[in-house]
């Protein structure tokens, strides 16, 4: 596999950090060098949260530059718009079509942009909108939408499905392992 840079963007509480950990663990198991960067602190407080995962034969910086992400995995629409600069022109942009209003929108000092995925598609050929929240609801726990999204993303790597399952087993808390594997599979099998 050539070097792969994956940027994950979400809202605090959506499981951005956990998702990147599963991805990192899977890449390590598959024999790649991995570097990841994340910023803690605001993760539980509804702020914009991003993590970078870089995979390859040899990785230097753990940080992805603007225009450097092969895959932009977004758990919320507005976050896709916010971080789109980081995607490569031919990069894959997977967007969960969920809307979470940020505080400026809630208090009426800003407007939530309309038609985000359509707008993104005008400039980026590979925008994939998905309804991960609905998929997670069907599984009985909306929190696993992150792993549904990871399942969708996993298809564009050459890491086999068993390795992903192993990575989930060793990263996720034991009592949530089965649920998360189901969530992963649901994403992997196109919802």
């Amino acid at each position, binding site marked *: 596999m050539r070097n792969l840079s994956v940027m994950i963007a979400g809202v605090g509480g959506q499981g951005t950090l956990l998702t990147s950990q599963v991805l990192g663990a899977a890449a390590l198991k598959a024999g790649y060098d991995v570097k990841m960067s994340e910023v*803690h602190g605001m993760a539980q407080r509804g702020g914009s949260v991003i993590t970078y995962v870089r995979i390859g034969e040899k990785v230097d910086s753990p940080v992805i530059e603007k225009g450097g992400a092969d895959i932009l995995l977004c758990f919320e629409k507005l976050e896709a718009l*916010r971080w*789109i*600069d980081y995607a490569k022109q031919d990069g894959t942009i997977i967007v969960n079509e969920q809307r979470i209003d*940020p505080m400026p929108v809630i208090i009426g000092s800003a407007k939530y942009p309309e038609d985000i995925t359509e707008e993104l598609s005008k400039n980026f050929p590979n925008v994939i909108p998905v309804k991960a929240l609905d998929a997670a609801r069907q599984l009985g726990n909306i929190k696993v939408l992150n792993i549904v999204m990871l399942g969708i993303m996993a298809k564009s790597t050459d890491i086999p499905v068993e390795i992903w399952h192993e990575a989930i087993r060793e990263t996720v808390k034991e009592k949530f392992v089965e649920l998360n594997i189901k969530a992963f599979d649901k994403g992997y099998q196109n919802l």
Partner: protein
Amino acid sequence: MKKLMLGNEAIARGAYEAGVTVASAYPGTPSTEITEYIAKYDDIYAEWAPNEKVALEVAIGASFGGARSVCAMKHVGLNVAADPLFTVSYTGVNGGLVICVADDPGMHSSQNEQDSRNYALAAKVPMLEPSDSQECKDYMKKALEISEEFDTPVILRLTTRISHSRSIVELNDREEILLKPYKKDFGKNVMMPAMARKRHVMVEERMKNLALYAEKTGLNKIIWSNTGIGVITSGISYQYSREAFGDVSYLKLGMVHPLPENLIKEFASKVKTLYVIEELDPFIETFLKKSGINCIGKEKLPVVGEYSAALIRQKLLGMDCTDSKEKQEDVPARPPVLCPGCPHRGVFYTLKKNKLIVIGDIGCYTLGALPPLESMDTCICMGASIGMAHGIEKARGGDFARKTVAVIGDSTFIHSGITGLIDIVYNKGTSTVIIVDNSITGMTGHQDNPCTGKTLKGETTRQVDLVKLCHAIGIDRVRICDPFDLDEFDKAIKEETELNEPSVIIAQRACALLKSVKYGGSVRVNDDLCKYCKACMRLGCPAIVDTGEGIRINDALCVGCNLCIDVCKFNAFEKAGDSNA
């Protein structure tokens, strides 16, 4: 065995492998996980101290007691611990002593952007700086060896991108290190003027020896390649530089104080253009210039903020990196907010209603400064709220104090608020102090503290009784109040601020993210009753949404705390499970 490890986790692993037996810390982003990971090792005693000064003192005590010991803090924590640091530099150690300090360039989660390398210079102690997780582990071990060999505390400097990045680490077994004998040594360990004068001479001698060590240690290494460009760098800047320049020559400094003058001169003499690439202050660059070595550094690179490979390409190679076609200027910001169900919401809602001047402090509740609550006037450092409230009263008089409150968290109060409160009592102030007691240290991700009744290792322990504590220092008026009982809380604030004596209100309600907190059942809007007056919007709850046509509850976010039910005069909010109408 190889493992993908967070930088902070690798630091902990290094402490474990190097036979450390005592660790003490106060949580602070981005350093917190160091001690959380250390606590997972049964072989190491680990604790949360009330503040960083105590943490360092515990580590010094353990070192004098013969153990290898570690303490950890964020950059501003080192300000608190600076007092013992400057003198333990004189005494030196017995067992190895390492102080981990995590700087936060870019201020992801901090109130300033100080460069802790200046402390190594000022306190005359060696400092190491790793550039990935493997080095985090290796340098921790090396730091302990240097500490014992040179009889000095050693600072291990991290930055956010090292602490919070993950990379692959090779694990080794733990080395069993025997406790060194304790020896009474008046001349070395009692820093009174006569002894300290002698010790200072030894400190200067030690720094000279360390400078010689810096010349030959493998911590500093030259990676020769194309000599057209030479880069002197350390820490995360080394990774950014590699990404930006690729195969040029590097002098990678693993030891950033003291610096190896001869090695630097040798490197400088063999490269055509010499860059010094370091985030924040021109620490290495100043040393070069003082030594008469020409280099390019801060004349082209910023002192402010984080670096990146793109920034280096742009500033040093003149490459335009703002070529992205999409310019996203109109994307609404998503600042961090008080969580749905956050007990602080009741506090700030009431303070705003009463139009009070709020002298604030450091914690989740600092978010109360942001719209729509906007009820915090100041934030400086841990514990500052109480002393500042007193100062503002002394500047503007008692009537002003009637309109002012200090707001401080439980953990922050124990950290360094209590001394301010003693000052108020002692010097006849009349401030009202609100201790927002959410039963946890929230902002840094749920650490126990002296008020929670649990230790870092999860054992139950004596809980600080805040009421008794306040009484004991001379506050007669102390009351506990639930910030979600809005009427009662409003009454308490009005009564206590009016009085001509100091008072403490303990706003007690647990953080909504604690597992023990169960509200159950989200809330919904009854459109027949909603007058669309938007009074609920003043709560700044992320789960309450104004669609432009009406108020809606985002049930994916609502935890069912019911604060909106209390605020609505028209009973338009109801529990989603309550009726089937």
